[in-house]
Structure formats: C-alpha cells, structure tokens
C-alpha cells in the first residue's frame, strides 16, 4: 500500500510540470505573436495564376516605397527564379512582401530574418518585417519545385545609408 502511494506521488510530481511547462510555452507564443507582432502568414486572398500580368499588384512586380522607410515588395515565384530576383533597401526599412506563384508550389525564405512563407499558385502570401543590419542576404526557394529547384535563389541587399531604393 505504501509503495503504491509512493508511485502515485511520483506520477503527480511528473504530471504537474508536464502540464505547466507546455502551458507556459503557449503563453509565451501568444504574447510574441499578438503583442510583439511576430506573426505567421494568414489568409491574404486568392489570385488567378493565369492572369497575373493583368492583376494588380502582380502586373508590376518589384519594390515600391509607400512612405519614408516603408516598402512593399511584390514578387512572383516561378520555375526556377523569383521576379524580381534582387531587392535593395536601406537599413531600417520596414518591408511587406506580397508573393505568389505562377506555376507550382515554391518557398520564400530570407536568411537571418523571420520571412518564411510557402508560395502557392492561386494564393497570396504576405509577411512584414524590418531589416536593421546592412548586408547581403540570400533568398531561398525552400520547397521542391522541380529539376532546377536548387537554382532558385534570390538576394536581398540592405544598404547602410538611407539612400534611395532601386530594384530590378
């Protein structure tokens, strides 16, 4: 009988933290996601992949300055490149990426940043972040999209000075 109680005691001593620790993690996640604003992509609407050349904003892919230090990058992912493939912004800029695919599923991941999205034909992927540290960052397609998938790499250049932006 004593042994049994000891067993229950051990079980409780394990179960309580097993409940408490995941709850603590969950609370931390909710705070960072909704108070600090590190958000995952959500439902940003659909678009017809066959009509990209006539549908705004994808009829004009590229970088647009919305306000000082505030940008919007419209990107089309396709076999096997991004358009535009290179984006240049000054440090401190806040950029919203609006991405879709012309053909199959691709990925859009910018190294050393939270930008990490699946890019799905028919869907619009949208994420915003701020780039503070100057440098050159690779943009990878990180979903298998076909024979040339490993060639599908873009670049984000964060320039030190608050100079005018360019894109191609």
């Amino acid at each position, binding site marked *: 009988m004593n042994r049994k109680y000891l067993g229950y005691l051990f079980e409780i001593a394990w179960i309580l933290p097993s409940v408490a620790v995941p709850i603590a*993690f969950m609370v931390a*996640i909710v705070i960072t996601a909704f108070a600090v604003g590190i958000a*995952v*992509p959500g439902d940003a609407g659909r678009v017809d992949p066959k009509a990209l050349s006539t549908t705004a904003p994808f009829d004009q892919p590229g970088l647009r300055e919305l306000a000082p230090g505030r940008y919007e990058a419209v990107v089309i992912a396709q076999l096997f490149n991004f358009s535009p493939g290179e984006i240049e912004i000054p440090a401190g800029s806040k950029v919203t990426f609006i991405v879709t695919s012309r053909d199959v*599923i691709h990925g859009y991941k910018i*190294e050393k940043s939270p930008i*990490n999205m699946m890019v799905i034909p028919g869907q619009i992927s949208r994420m915003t972040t701020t780039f503070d540290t100057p440098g050159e960052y690779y943009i990878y397609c990180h979903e298998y999209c076909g024979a040339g998938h490993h060639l599908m790499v873009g670049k984000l250049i964060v320039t030190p000075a608050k100079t005018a932006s360019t894109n191609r």
Partner: protein
Amino acid sequence: MATARVSSVSITAERAEVGVFATEYRLTGLNMLIAFIALAIGGLFGVMQALQYNGIDLYKPISPILRGGYYQGLALHGVLNVLVFTTFFIIGWLTFVTSRSLGIPLASRALGWTTFGVMTSGLLIAALPLLLNNATVLFTFYPPLKADPLFYIGLTLVVVGTWLLLINQVMMLRQWRAANPTARIPLPAFMAIVTMTMWVICTFGVATEMLFLLIPWSLGLAPGTDPVLARTLFWFTGHPIVYFWLLPAYISWYNFVPQQAGGRLFSDPMARVAFILFLILSTPIGMHHQYTDPGISEIWKLIHAIFTFGVFFPSLLTFFNVVASLENGGRARGGKGWLVWVFSLPWREPSFTTQVLAMILFAFGGAGGLINASYNINLVVHNTSWISGHFHLTVGTAVTLSFMGITYWLVPHLTGRRLWSPTMALVQAWTWFIGMGIFAHWMHMLGLLSMPRRTAIGAMREIHPEWEPLLPMVAVGAIIMFISAILYYLNMVLTITAGKKDTVPMVPFARAVSGPEDGPRVLDNFKPWLAIAFTLIVINYTPTLIRLVSEMQFIPGIRSW
C-alpha cells in the same frame, strides 16, 4: 538473452503455440521482409544525398537506371522509408501483437491475406512510375506537381489495404470478449487496436485527397486541382501518420522492453490513458505543418498549435512510464542509487540496447519537435534542413532503430533460428546511435543557417560560405549510419539463411507494477473516446475545409522535373 534457458516442457508448448499462429507468423514475416527490402533501397539514397552535399555525385553513374538524379532519389528515399517501410512493418507487427496478446488467431485469415495482397499490389503499382521518373513529386506529392496516375492509385491501395487489419482486429476483439466477458483487454492488444483506429480515422484526409482531387485530375477528368485544399487534406493525415509510426514502437517500449530489462511496466492505466490521448489528439492538429501556408487563417493555426502542445502530454507520460519501468528492471537486477541502476540494465542484450538507444535520441527529437510546433518560432526552421535533422531522430531513429531492435528477437522467434551475431547487433545499434547523432546535429545547425531542405545543395550555383565547414560532418554521420545498416542486413541475412536452428521463445509480455485493475473500466470502452475524437476533428477542421472547398480553384498540373 538470446540463449535463454527454457525447460523442455515449455519448448513443446511454445512449438504448439507457434503452430496455432502459423498463418499470422507467415504474414508478419512477409510484411517485415518487404519493409526491410524497401528500407535497404531507400536508405542507400540517404548516403548519396549526404555525399552530394559535399560534391560527390553518385547519380551520374546510375543515370542509365534512374534518369531523375537527386530528386528522383529523394522521392524514392522518402516514399520507401516512411511510406513503405513503416507501413508494411507496422501491419506485420500489429498482426503479431494483436493475435499473441489476445491469444487467438486472425478472425479471418482470408482477410489477412487480402490485406497483404492489396498492399503489395498497391506497392508494385506505385513503384513503376517512381522508378521510371514519372512520379518525382517526393513523398508529399503536393499538387500542382503532377505524377503518373498509377502513383496515386498505388499509394491509395496501400492505405486501403491497411484498413482491413482493423476489421480483423475488431472481429478478434469481439471473439475475445465473448470468451472473457469480465476481463480487461490485454494492454498490447488494446494499444494495437487504438493505433489502427487512429490510423483509419486520420487516413480519411489523404483518401479524400486521392479519390476526389488527385486521381481524377491525374487521369485528365478534372482541369486542375486546388493546392491548398490538397495540402490541408494531406496534413490531416500527415501529422497523425507520425503517431502511426511511433505508437507501434511505443507498444514495444511498454510491453517488451520492461521485460527485457528484467522488470515490470510501471503503470498499465497510465499507458492506457496515454494511448487514448493519442487517439483523441493526433488528428485535430495537422495544420501545425501549415503555419507558413497562405490561405489559412492565423486563428486556426494557433488553435492547432495549442492542441499540438496537448499531444505533447501523452508523450511525456510515455517518457515517465518507460523510464520508471527501466528503473524497475535496473533495481530488480541489483541496481542502486539515483541513477547508478542504469549500469545494471542488460546492455549486452542487443534488442534491449537497440531500443533504449532509440529512446535516448528520441528525447532530443521530441525537444526539437516542441520547437517546430511553436507557431511563430517555426518561422526560423520551417523547410530548412533542421526539419530533416529532426525527423531522422524521430522516424529515422526512434521508429526505425526500435523496429530493428524488435527484429533482433522477433526474426529468430519467427524463423526458429538464433540471431547470427549478438555482438554485431550491439555494434550496429551503437554505430547507428553515433552516426545519427552526428548527422542530425549538423543538419539541425545547417537549418539554423537557413539551408533549405529537399535541395541538391551540391549543384547550387553558390554554396553559402557559412554552410561549407559543416557539410562534411553530415557525410561523416551518413557514412557511419551506412556501415551500421550494412551490419544490420548482414546479420539478418545470415540469421535467416545460416542461423543455428533452435526454438527461440517469444519475449513474454511485461507484467505491470500497477495493473489494469488500478484504472477505471471506461478506459477499455472505445465509444466515449471516439466521440471526443470526432468532435475535436469536426471543430478544428470543418470551418477551414468548408471555406477552402467553396473557394476552390482549378490549378493545372505541371511536370517540372
């Protein structure tokens, strides 16, 4: 140990028992044979991938046979290892566990053979386009990548075949209950039936995807298909499938490893509770694989994240129960102290050691899984090689190495031949443990440096300078695992063909310190738990599925390989 002494009386009894289960044993053996042939071929590509990362391209020499290069190899690696190896092994293993635990043969042997026949035909049908480079869509087959229809039809048949085992199990349980109206369901059979029930429920997702989206579309009957809807249905099955792989390993950890450790299972009721929680919580959380997907609202992603943390709980219960059982064994063998009892465990017994090493790496896999599940933290790791590192610890080790450990006693038992070399088996277990530890560690690190997964790194225009110093370690780990695999297959082939003929008894099911009588009877009644499971699935999936169906687009298929 492999050479356990048994009296002549029990040997005769054992022979008679084996006679009763002759068909079940044949089915178990055949399923496992196909499983391990698949793993041998699939595993080979793993080494080739790790070498390709380092500029050693073994795909050119084999291009006359496989034209598709890296990605065709990767499709074979994924499909053969996690769809074919796991599924066939599990169907064989659960056939064995259910019949031996209830003490009765399959209710319908004809149905048992049909299960095997349907699965095997499905495998052959899917293998054809895979080998001809007409299904290089990887094991997730996300549309609009469009494979040969035979690929989808074959995989569907494999899944449909597995469902038949549940029918057999339910009939067996009825028979058993009629003969034992007041007894509690034996724990191993209970777990085997819960596993199959969960699997049949969750495969509703992929079956719907196949039958209503992919098969008609690939046959040209539909102009296109909706990729987000297809992904959502895929992951409806795709998360619970990891429990379909894991629970059969848990069945061994709960019911055989404590016995092999020389002790007892700590708590039978706690084990039943854990399995019921898996039944309830495995499925309504699949969107945690879609945190970075467009077209799905953040709120539903967050709700799935919360439930994912919930399913972490039964895994923690398992961790506690299994470690407490090991401690029970260690102390029974004279072990003392807080931790020193570990050294009293039977480390020279290959099946035991193999599975305990699998458990140790699984602890790291579980911790990584918690990170993956963490909603926005997932942004750091999603689709990087971190994920590859993670699931080689879970399915690639916790599951695969445990299954190997099971065969170290089960194959001698099934074939009546002693294990060829217990020492070789021990070396195999440790080399897998070490090789995988190295491989997985550096894959995780590379993932943190944004190295994409599913990518022929060696063929990139520029390899990131930060990755270069780490890539060789991936190959080192891979080569050590490759050596381990060779030792495994050598040992098994020698056991089957040249092992010393002997009656090798089955490892008895472990008894529990705290038996089923310490838990409420409702644990054995599936109805309330099934009702809760269905309710949660309906709540967590219906709004998203209804919206996706109503917004459905027909995106045309593409062959981009």
